[in-house]
């Protein structure tokens, strides 16, 4: 009951806003404790879950986290490693033994991944000084060929996925595209109505926290598809 109340009326908070006074709650992401108070650090939406108060940021760069699946681009090929741009201030490294293929001795590793290749990889380690390690040894990870990539605000990725993937699977169903979402704000779309899916994703980025967004996006997609259908009919005549 209490939870429903807090989630239905989320408020926008700014840096320096006092979120809670007392010692019964814990400061979560985007907050800090100062004496008895829990204070917001960023512009975002206040979210209370169990005993933790956090602020979901509405802007900001992607900060890598262990276990995240990200879409990256190979920017450097070394002797035994690749450097990957992961849409973050920090570059990630992928070592030779992080790929599922068998690498022969003294092989030129650009055979496996070369400059400009787009990969869907998993973050295995992030150190305090922000050295980042990636792996491809995961059933979900693979090289992405073709299709198109769109960028959204990284903090809005959970909104794009929706509750148990409801939002993204709705877009997949209507447009018939294959969609892969990286936690770093990059989205890969392939097949089906690619540009239409991209438009829907931009729409979610823009109106991320409006109520009933899923329905609005669904309506938009159906309308656009109908229009396109009309166009096809006219062309065939």
């Amino acid at each position, binding site marked *: 009951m209490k939870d429903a109340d807090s989630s239905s009326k*989320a408020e926008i908070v700014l*840096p320096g806003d006092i979120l809670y006074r007392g010692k019964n709650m814990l400061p979560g992401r985007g907050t800090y404790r100062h004496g008895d108070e829990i204070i917001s650090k960023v512009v975002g939406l206040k979210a209370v879950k169990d005993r933790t108060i956090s602020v*979901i940021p509405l802007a900001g*760069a992607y900060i890598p986290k262990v276990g995240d699946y990200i879409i990256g681009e190979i920017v450097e090929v070394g002797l035994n490693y690749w450097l990957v741009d992961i849409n973050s*201030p920090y570059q990630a490294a992928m070592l030779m033994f992080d790929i599922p293929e068998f690498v022969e001795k003294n092989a030129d590793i650009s055979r496996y991944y070369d400059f400009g290749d787009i990969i869907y990889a998993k973050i295995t380690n992030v150190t305090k000084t922000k050295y980042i390690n990636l792996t491809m040894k995961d059933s979900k990870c693979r090289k992405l060929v073709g299709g198109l990539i769109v960028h959204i605000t990284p903090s809005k990725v*959970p909104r794009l996925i929706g509750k148990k993937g409801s939002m993204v699977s709705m877009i997949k169903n209507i447009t018939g595209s294959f969609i892969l979402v990286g936690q770093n704000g990059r989205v890969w779309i392939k097949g089906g109505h690619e540009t239409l899916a991209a438009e829907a994703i931009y729409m979610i980025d823009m109106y991320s*926290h*409006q109520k009933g*967004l899923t329905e609005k996006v669904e309506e938009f997609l159906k309308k656009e598809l109908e229009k396109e259908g009309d166009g096809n009919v006219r062309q065939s005549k």
Partner: protein
Amino acid sequence: MSDKASKDFHENIKDHLRPDGRKPDDFRPIKIEVGVIKRADGSAYVEFGKTRVVAAVYGPEPMHPRHLADPEKAVLICRYNMLPFSVEERKKPGPDRRSIEISKVVKDALSTVVVLEEFPKCMISVDMVVLEADAGTRVAALTAASLALADAGIPMREMISAIACGRANGQIVVDLTKEEEDAEDAVDVPVAMSSLTKRISLLQMDGDLTIEEFEAILDKASNSCVKIHAMQRDALLKKYKKEGEEVDIDDEY
């Protein structure tokens, strides 16, 4: 006519009105807007009467040049710049002694609130451009920079608001214009204060004041900073409210 003007002037002094008709505690018309530059990560526009400043924030991004990177925290880079046509006589473009000083004091003020420890090896650039100058450009720039940082999603412990106070024509006034700053007895005291803990992060003085006057100025400045902060809040909320109207949070977060 000139007699009447001079009489008016003395009347004004009697009523404690200032050359532009303001009361000592009044600001010039203030306009604040957030998110004015699309290409920047965060931006803000601040107008104090005829003083107009734009601030833009880029980052966090990899530090360049690399050897200046700090392995423990981000580096804040502030650039204050005046456009050639911002002042009465054309200003030679590029940094000068004054703008380097202002860049430094603004950087020091912002460093007290920005949580730089979250982005080791990175840099955060804050660019401030004065479009039109009529005194109080450093406080306008600082007010705008604080908003732009918040807009860029960079974590800050609190916000910073700034205002210039001082003495002009024998009275303690808030938000001086260039005309007042050029008065014979003028002393300009720019003050920046954090929004929550009310700590002073910028305080400069270019003249002589008695202790009583200084305390009066500080008092007025802190009251004014609270008012400026309220305006900053409104401006930030105005940008984000439309995104967050009837906000809805998923369990996914």
